[in-house]
């Protein structure tokens, strides 16, 4: 217990032991004969992705470049899969030797970790809907612009006051939402824009670079020897044309590559956990609370209906309820949220908050249904008989006799489910809702540490859940006065 706790804290702070002693990564690589690099194949084509013809093989221009560097260092390269937004913290933890996955050379990153010389120059490309006359990022003030989390484009959007930046995790989704009118523009690297945005006839890529930046390899602070070796290899590749060959093969070579270093990039203002950030946390907690309450207000009546259908319905009615419960309980909420927000986008255009409430509500209804079913079955048989003998109709019996009693029995598991929903609501960040947990991960990037925002986030969840448990406890005492525990 204590060890587990200590370990959890260590992970939170990010001080788990690294594989090689500080600054000795190059020696370790040479000794092992292997350089490990972190990347996320979700970034997709052309960076690192699965070969469509041969699924277990990874291809992409970054695979080719890293293999070439490794060859020049006299070792083999092995990619390890990590979630993109966790690449830098994982590098710092020592999970792998370097990061190479569209990592942009931002001023902020340059302060945090060691960066190699660039291997690619990209341009930030603004994409709008075809027919939209906007041609500049400055025309986007007061509008919604989609981008990826922790990118140079995100930094640019944050620097420009009055732009509502919507943060995504995948390459495809920002352009889908732009097409659907959920956003007004997308600002992302030309590599991503060319492949996911500009190919779409409904969208238009503005042909001027909003800004330029470079992709670099990220190394741990102190690994200057490794940086020197990698920079040397990259310089050789530039000189003997191997880099150009790789980029041409990936159809990525353009005039921009001739300029080696286009500048330092924007510097986001330093953050400390101040009043502003606290207010952001409070706002995010409010989103979480709203989301949970509204979703639960949907789940309770729907669950009750499903339970009544399952207990009292005819065969087809029972079957419908049963299928609903099995489907929504048997598949991940995350999947349901994706389907609801992105999958059904062509048919019903739900806002992220609507989709989140609907998704969580529909999912939890399946759980509530089973809770109420159990409660209905626990009501003594004589209750229904007494109501019938008084001449009450089935509906009157249900409403005045069965459901109020079922609710009393179901109160403890319902409280349980609500607290659980409060925490599960963090899943909706995948459909761009910024709630408490997402706010925490964003703050962790700004603050370069997980401990303070993590504890703040935990405290906020408790501030939300404990009063709710207390409320439920009082309600239980009031409603279920006669349900005292039996003596054992």
């Amino acid at each position, binding site marked *: 217990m204590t060890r587990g706790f200590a370990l959890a804290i260590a992970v939170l702070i990010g001080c788990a032991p690294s594989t090689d002693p500080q600054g000795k990564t190059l020696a370790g690589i040479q000794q092992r004969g292997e350089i490990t690099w972190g990347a996320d194949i979700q970034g997709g084509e052309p960076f690192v992705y699965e070969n469509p013809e041969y699924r277990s093989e990874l291809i992409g221009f970054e695979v080719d470049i890293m293999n070439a560097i490794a060859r020049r260092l006299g070792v083999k390269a092995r990619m390890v899969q990590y979630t993109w937004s966790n690449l830098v913290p994982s590098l710092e933890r020592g999970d792998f030797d370097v990061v190479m996955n569209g990592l942009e050379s931002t001023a902020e990153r340059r302060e945090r970790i060691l960066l190699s010389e660039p291997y690619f120059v990209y341009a930030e490309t603004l994409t709008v809907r075809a027919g939209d006359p906007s041609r500049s990022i400055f025309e986007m003030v007061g509008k919604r612009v989609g981008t990826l989390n922790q990118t140079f484009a995100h930094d640019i959007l944050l620097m420009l006051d009055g732009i509502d930046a919507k943060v995504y995790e995948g390459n495809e989704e920002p352009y889908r939402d732009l097409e659907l009118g959920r956003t007004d523009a997308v600002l992302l690297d030309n590599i991503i824009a060319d492949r996911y945005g500009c190919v779409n006839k409904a969208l238009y890529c503005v042909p001027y670079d909003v800004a330029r930046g470079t992709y670099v390899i990220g190394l741990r602070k102190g690994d200057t020897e490794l940086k020197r070796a990698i920079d040397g290899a990259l310089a050789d590749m530039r000189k003997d044309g191997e880099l150009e060959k790789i980029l041409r093969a990936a159809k990525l070579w353009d005039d921009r590559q001739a300029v080696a270093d286009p500048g330092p990039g924007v510097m986001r203002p330093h953050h400390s956990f101040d009043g502003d950030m606290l207010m952001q946390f409070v706002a995010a907690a409010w989103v979480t609370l709203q989301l949970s309450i509204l979703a639960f207000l949907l789940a309770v009546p729907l669950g009750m209906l499903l339970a009544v259908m399952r207990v009292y319905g005819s065969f087809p009615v029972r079957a419908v309820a049963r299928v609903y419960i099995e489907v929504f309980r048997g598949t991940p909420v995350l999947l349901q949220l994706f389907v609801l927000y992105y999958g059904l986008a062509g048919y019903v255009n739900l806002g992220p908050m609507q989709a989140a409430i609907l998704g969580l509500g529909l999912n939890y209804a399946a759980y509530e249904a089973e809770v109420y079913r159990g409660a209905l079955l626990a009501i003594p048989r*004589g209750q229904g008989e*007494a109501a*019938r003998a*008084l*001449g009450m109709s*089935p509906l009157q019996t249900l409403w*005045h*006799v069965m459901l109020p*009693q079922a609710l009393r029995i179901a109160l403890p598991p319902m409280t349980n489910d609500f607290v659980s929903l409060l925490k599960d609501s963090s899943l909706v960040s995948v459909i761009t809702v910024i709630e408490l947990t997402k706010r925490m991960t964003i703050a962790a990037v700004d603050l370069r540490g997980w401990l303070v925002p993590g504890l703040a986030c935990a405290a906020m969840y408790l501030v939300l859940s404990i009063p709710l448990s207390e409320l439920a406890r009082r309600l239980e005492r009031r409603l279920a006065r*006669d349900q005292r525990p039996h003596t054992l």
Partner: protein
Amino acid sequence: MISVRTLCKRHGDRSVLENVSAEVTRGETIAIVGPSGGGKSTLLRCLNYLESFDAGSVTIAGFELRPGMGARDAAKLRAMRSRVGMVFQQFNLFPHLSALDNITLAPRVVKGSASGKAETRALELLHKVGLRDRANAYPHELSGGQQQRVAIARALAQEPDVLLFDEPTSALDPEMRDDVMEVIRDLAKGGMTMLVVTHEMQFAHDIASRVWVIDKGTIAEDGPPSQVVDDPQTTVAREFFARLRSARRD
């Protein structure tokens, strides 16, 4: 008021009621006695169709009941049940409602009475069963005898033509039975038509205008208590009463 004609009911192969026929006129109090498993409760529950039967018919409070009544007859059954009150062995009060609300629920919901009117009537009934001061108590705050008296008031609130009692005192401690029996006795005096399944012989003797001895699904003996209890004609009745008397002496 009640007419039962050749009523038959089976549970699988076992015959529970066999060609039961009987008549009850307005104002009569029938005590139904007999050995356990003889079909007393089943007969009672057939009278308000809480249980269906396989053959024969029942006319009660002007409603005709036949085998196989289902969803199509639901409205008719409900109308019948608001004319026929029932009191259960286990009281079956609604635990989430106060004594007062237990009594007013059916008048409000089924008959659509205004709450004010229903409450005034409920308080009268509570007064009648001696619980005027416990109107706001919840069932779990009442003793068994008190709960059963509230249950009687609940049944009376529908102003029924007939009251059915299914062993109303069997779940009660002896000292609480008297209060409940007192209430039933008052009702009998007031001219209410009642059928009471009971094991209390003295009580049956005192209040009943007629006693039915039911055994093996038939009415073995039917007559005034002075005849059936004091001088039973059938072997079944004689043995049953003899067993009861010897049990009391032990």
